[in-house]
């Protein structure tokens, strides 16, 4: 791999975070930002979704002389098939996360381990309609309810859907026939469906995407958060430092990557135990710190009020994970899901950073696999700690350090959830609703999801967020987009200066920034709970709210499954680049036009931040008008 600076004096991609852009440009190690240019020639067939590689007769492509693949599939079939397969894979990812999360809740109950929020537990028990002998039994029962739904066969509807989802939405979903069966079964079924010479009905496949979206959104997103709250604590609003300044070289620093906060329950407490801190001190450090990156970092940040000792802060989103590791002060990586970039492998090799993988789905080639296993967590935990201490000893002083101590800021607002926000407003949504009705807040925009680099690192996300707040639209974020926006200061109270006059006044009065961080992409589900509760108070269905969503720089298949949920909820969803669908007139039309008649939602593609903001504002104004506000 390239480590010589000569080889790397090539262009790195632009970033909304200018200091980070400069830092990365100077790095002697190769990151994703360096690789963007070399990959800038994109296959046009791939971009349009009309390349099919399913069978040995292929790869087939749609061209004027050959508009059908060898099997006879036309562009509509090929695109819909590719799209459904991606949504199924994405759904699978989130269902894997909620499955593990439910299992850990169950273990917590079985082992009578620490429960940080009984309030969260009781809330779930109420929604599910379960009772238990004690709180531990309740944990088991709640978890079992979730798991039994996930494990149902796909031809059995999941029980909790009606309990979790907004009633008007459920009614519509039943009309459309998209109530999901067992979540894992659905993923399985749709993988089968999209295999060779099976389903070739593009509309049926798109409808299946909606079904997958519902199971993804209710279970993978919403429930994961609520289950995590029980064991890990409710989110609390607070100010927190963000960016690479959070990294303190005096500690043994562990970078965490993934989405499964529940897999860290044991170790994050263990690292504070006296005997463990002693190990750190013996090695020459003050103790251990967890450094956040990717969604699990956002999870820790969200609940950071409960972890102020062990958690330093969230350094940044997925696409600066390589830069964070390159600073030299990170001694180990604990990974359990995405985004754990393959690009970290050579960097960890070069800088002797110990990689430990807790869930095989996120295994790096040079990582040690120590699967998280509740029964053996103590012995495993000690082993992990010892290996990390050994890595610290071996590497410090032997590898170059290039800290970035003035990157980011010290006062980003974090910890926003449907619970903490409502509490902040005085235990009611009324203040927020009043502000919206009065036009002080024109509407709500969820700028959520991933960070991507191919067209600029967070550039569209940042531009869009700035344009929206300038239009008095309150921006709610969740996912790696949050990581990008907080590092450029949009979540500090000072950012209110960038907002339009009305929103600025509101922010200053309440002492909040114009962009509110709900945390990991899982928390998009929380955002949707907020929307549901507000809709309920107003007595309307979700498509009627002055609410828009943007997954401007959506990255992966999970984002598409997420997006399918947004469509099922009837919300307008903006994407910066099309999800490999434009080769099919049918798929494009269904997603961008016909969907309105089906669920009320639709996809809007716009690579330009200004023009996207204008479109979204227009939609919000339309919805306001329809509500007579």
């Amino acid at each position, binding site marked *: 791999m390239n480590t010589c600076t000569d080889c790397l004096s090539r262009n790195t991609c632009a970033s909304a975070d200018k200091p980070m852009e400069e830092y990365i440009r100077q790095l002697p190690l190769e990151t994703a930002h360096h690789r963007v240019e070399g990959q800038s*020639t*994109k*296959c*046009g*067939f791939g*971009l*349009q979704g*009309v390349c099919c590689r399913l069978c040995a007769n292929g790869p087939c*492509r*749609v*061209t*004027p*002389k050959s*508009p059908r693949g060898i099997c006879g599939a036309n*562009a509509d079939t090929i695109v819909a098939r590719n799209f459904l397969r991606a949504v199924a894979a994405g759904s699978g990812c989130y269902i894997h996360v909620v499955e593990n999360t439910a299992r850990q809740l169950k273990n917590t109950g079985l082992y009578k381990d620490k429960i940080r929020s009984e309030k969260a537990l009781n809330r779930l028990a109420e929604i599910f309609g379960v009772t238990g002998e004690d709180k531990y039994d309740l944990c088991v029962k709640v978890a079992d309810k979730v798991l039994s739904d996930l494990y149902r066969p796909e031809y059995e509807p999941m029980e909790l859907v009606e309990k979790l989802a907004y009633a008007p939405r459920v009614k519509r979903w039943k009309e459309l026939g998209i109530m999901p069966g067992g979540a894992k079964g659905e993923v399985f079924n749709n993988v089968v469906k999209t295999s060779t010479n099976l389903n070739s009905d593009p509309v049926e496949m798109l409808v299946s995407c909606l079904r997958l979206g519902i199971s993804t959104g209710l279970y993978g997103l919403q429930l994961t958060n609520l289950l995590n709250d029980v064991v890990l604590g409710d989110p609390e609003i607070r100010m927190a430092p963000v960016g690479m300044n959070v990294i303190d070289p005096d500690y043994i620093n562990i970078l965490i990557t993934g989405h499964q906060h529940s897999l860290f329950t044991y170790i994050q407490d263990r690292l504070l135990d006296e005997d463990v801190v002693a190990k750190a001190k013996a090695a020459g450090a003050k103790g251990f710190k967890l450094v956040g990156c990717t969604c699990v970092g956002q999870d820790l940040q969200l609940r950071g009020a409960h972890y102020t000792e062990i958690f330093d802060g969230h350094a940044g989103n997925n696409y600066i994970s390589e830069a964070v590791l390159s600073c030299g002060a990170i001694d180990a990586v604990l990974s359990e899901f995405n985004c754990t970039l393959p690009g970290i492998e050579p960097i960890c090799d070069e800088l002797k950073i110990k990689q430990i993988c807790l869930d095989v789905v996120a295994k790096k080639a040079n990582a040690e696999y120590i699967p998280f296993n509740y029964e053996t967590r103590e012995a495993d935990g000690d082993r992990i700690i010892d290996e990390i201490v050994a890595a610290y000893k071996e590497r410090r002083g032997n590898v170059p350090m290039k800290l970035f101590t003035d990157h980011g800021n010290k006062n980003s607002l974090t910890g926003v959830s449907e619970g903490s926000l409502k509490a902040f407003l005085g235990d009611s949504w009324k203040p927020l609703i009043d502000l919206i009705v009065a036009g002080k807040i024109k509407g709500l925009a969820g700028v959520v999801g991933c960070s991507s680099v191919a067209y600029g690192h967070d550039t569209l996300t940042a531009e869009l967020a700035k344009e929206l707040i300038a239009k008095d639209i309150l921006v709610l974020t969740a996912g790696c987009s949050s990581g990008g926006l907080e590092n450029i200061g949009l979540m500090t109270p000072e950012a209110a200066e960038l907002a339009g006059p009305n929103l600025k006044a509101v922010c200053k009065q309440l002492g909040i920034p114009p962009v509110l961080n709900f945390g990991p992409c899982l928390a998009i589900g929380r955002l949707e709970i907020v929307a549901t509760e507000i809709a309920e108070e107003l007595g309307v269905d979700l498509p009627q709210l002055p609410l828009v969503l943007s997954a401007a720089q959506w990255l992966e298949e999970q984002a598409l499954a997420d997006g399918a949920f947004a469509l099922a909820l009837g919300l307008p969803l903006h994407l910066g*680049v*099309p999800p490999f669908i*434009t*080769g099919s007139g049918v798929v494009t039309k269904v997603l961008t036009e016909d969907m309105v008649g089906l669920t009320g939602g639709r996809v809007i593609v716009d690579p330009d931040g200004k023009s996207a903001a204008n479109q979204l504002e227009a939609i919000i104004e339309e919805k306001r008008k329809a509500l007579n506000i």
Partner: protein
Amino acid sequence: MKRIFIDPAKCDGCKNCTLACMESHRQDGGKGLYTLDLTDPANQSRNFIVADGKGGYAPVFCRHCDVPDCAGACMSGALQKNMENGLVEYDKEKCAACYMCVMSCRYGVPAISPDRKRIIKCDFCAHLEEGPACVRACPKQAIEVREV
């Protein structure tokens, strides 16, 4: 004059050049590979890639020949060798679609348009400041512009 030099050993048959050519000449007012109509025979590529049957590919591109067969056959003056830049230029207004050029090109490069009113032939992307779109799109650098 400039000519697109071809190194067939580097060609992988990915057809990025084909798509770039289509994109460069599209007439629907759109822009970007996402919306390029991949099924429109009126906007076919001026170049074509043929699998050579031995695992390799033969890229067939207009050579803008020193002594062009096509311009030598043209009875309307539509095809002319521009002596300044060396390109064989095509004026579709003059063309009477007699197709003698199609018949005369010994490499079989020109194609006829679906409406049978013109030919489809490489124009070296004279309308683009950056030059031929195909060359810029090749991820293997199998084609490059050189001065001859």
